[in-house]
C-alpha cells in the first residue's frame, strides 16, 4: 500500500522509499494473500470502502435525525437499518455501529483508549489527534478539560459520559441541533455538523458563528 506514504518523508527510509510501517504493512498484506486469508482485491476493496466515507456522510445522517423524529428513533434503536435507508449499507460483520444522543442534560464523547477504534464505516478514517496518546489518555480521565481545549465549556448542569470503545462496537454521537436553526433545510443543517461534534468533543456549529461576534 505504497500510496499511503507518498509525499511523506520518513527518516530511516529504505532504498525503495518506504518507511518502517509501510514496509511492515506490505509484509503483512503479502502474508495474508499468500496464506489465502484474503485476496489482494478484497484488501483493496476494503480500503476503497473506508476511504469512500467521510464526515459529510455522518452529517447527512445527523441532519436527517434532526428534522425527522421518527428517523431519529430508528437511528438510535436500529442504526444499521436506519443507515441503510439513507444509502449507507454497513457490512454485515463486526464492528457494529451504535448511536448515542446528546441532550441538554447529557453530553457524550467517544474515545478508544486502547488504539484508534472509530466509526470508520460511516465517517471514514479518524483524525490524527484521535489516535494520539494525549487524547486517548486524557479524554477518559478529564473529559471536561479536553472539551474545554476544543472550545467547549460543558456546564455543571450537564452530565458528561465518556464512551471507551474497546470492543466490537463503534460509537457515533448524535449532536444537539443548534439553536436558531428552526427554519433551515436538511442540506443546510448538514453543513453545521462537524466531524468533531460526532466524536463529541464539540457541539455542532452554530449558524451564528459565520457572523463575527454572533
Amino acid at each position, binding site marked *: 500500500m505504497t500510496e499511503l506514504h507518498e509525499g511523506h518523508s520518513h527518516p530511516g527510509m529504505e532504498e525503495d522509499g518506504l518507511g518502517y510501517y509501510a514496509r511492515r504493512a506490505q509484509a503483512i498484506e503479502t502474508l495474508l494473500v499468500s496464506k489465502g486469508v484474503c485476496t489482494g482485491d478484497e484488501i483493496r476493496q476494503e480500503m476503497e470502502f473506508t476511504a469512500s466515507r467521510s464526515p459529510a456522510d455522518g452529517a447527512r445522517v445527523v441532519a436527517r435525525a434532526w428534522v425527522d423524529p421518527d428517523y431519529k428513533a430508528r437511528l438510535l434503536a436500529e442504526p444499521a437499518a436506519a443507515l441503510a435507508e439513507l444509502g449507507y449499507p454497513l457490512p454485515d460483520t463486526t464492528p457494529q455501529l451504535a448511536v448515542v444522543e446528546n441532550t441538554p442534560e447529557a453530553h457524550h464523547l467517544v474515545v478508544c483508549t486502547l488504539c484508534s477504534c472509530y466509526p470508520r464505516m460511516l465517517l471514514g478514517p479518524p483524525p490524527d489527534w484521535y489516535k494520539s496518546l494525549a487524547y486517548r489518555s486524557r479524554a477518559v480521565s478529564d473529559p471536561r478539560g479536553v472539551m474545554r481545549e476544543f472550545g467547549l465549556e460543558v456546564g455543571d448542569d450537564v452530565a458528561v*459520559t465518556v464512551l471507551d470503545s474497546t*470492543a*466490537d462496537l463503534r460509537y457515533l454521537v448524535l449532536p444537539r441541533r443548534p439553536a436558531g436553526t428552526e427554519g433551515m433545510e436538511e442540506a443546510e443543517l448538514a453543513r453545521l455538523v462537524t466531524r468533531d461534534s460526532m466524536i463529541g468533543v464539540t457541539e455542532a456549529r452554530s449558524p451564528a458563528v459565520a457572523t463575527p461576534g454572533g
Partner: protein
Amino acid sequence: MMPRFAAGDVVSVKRGSPPGHFRTPAYIQGKTGRVAALCGVFPNPESLAHGGDGLPEQPLYRVEFAQSHVWDGYRGRADDKLLIDIYQHWLEPAGDGEVT
C-alpha cells in the same frame, strides 16, 4: 456461551495481564460498575488476535462506572459516567452490590 449478567447487575472487573492481546484496559481493572446493556455475543478477540477461532464466543456488556470511582480527584460532576465495553470473562459479580 450464555450471558451471565443482565442490565442493572453490579459487577467488578477482574485484574489481569494475560500474555498477548486483550481489550480490558488497566485503568478499569478492579473497578466496580453496573451493567448498562448486553451488546451481543462475539468471538473472543483474545483468541482471534492470535489466529484462534474465537470460541467460545463471549457475551459483551456495556458497563457503566462513576468517573469519581474510576479516577482519584476526578474533575467534574459526581454523576459523570464512563461507559466501556467489556467481555464476560473479565467480569465477576460484585461482592456486596455496592457501587462507589
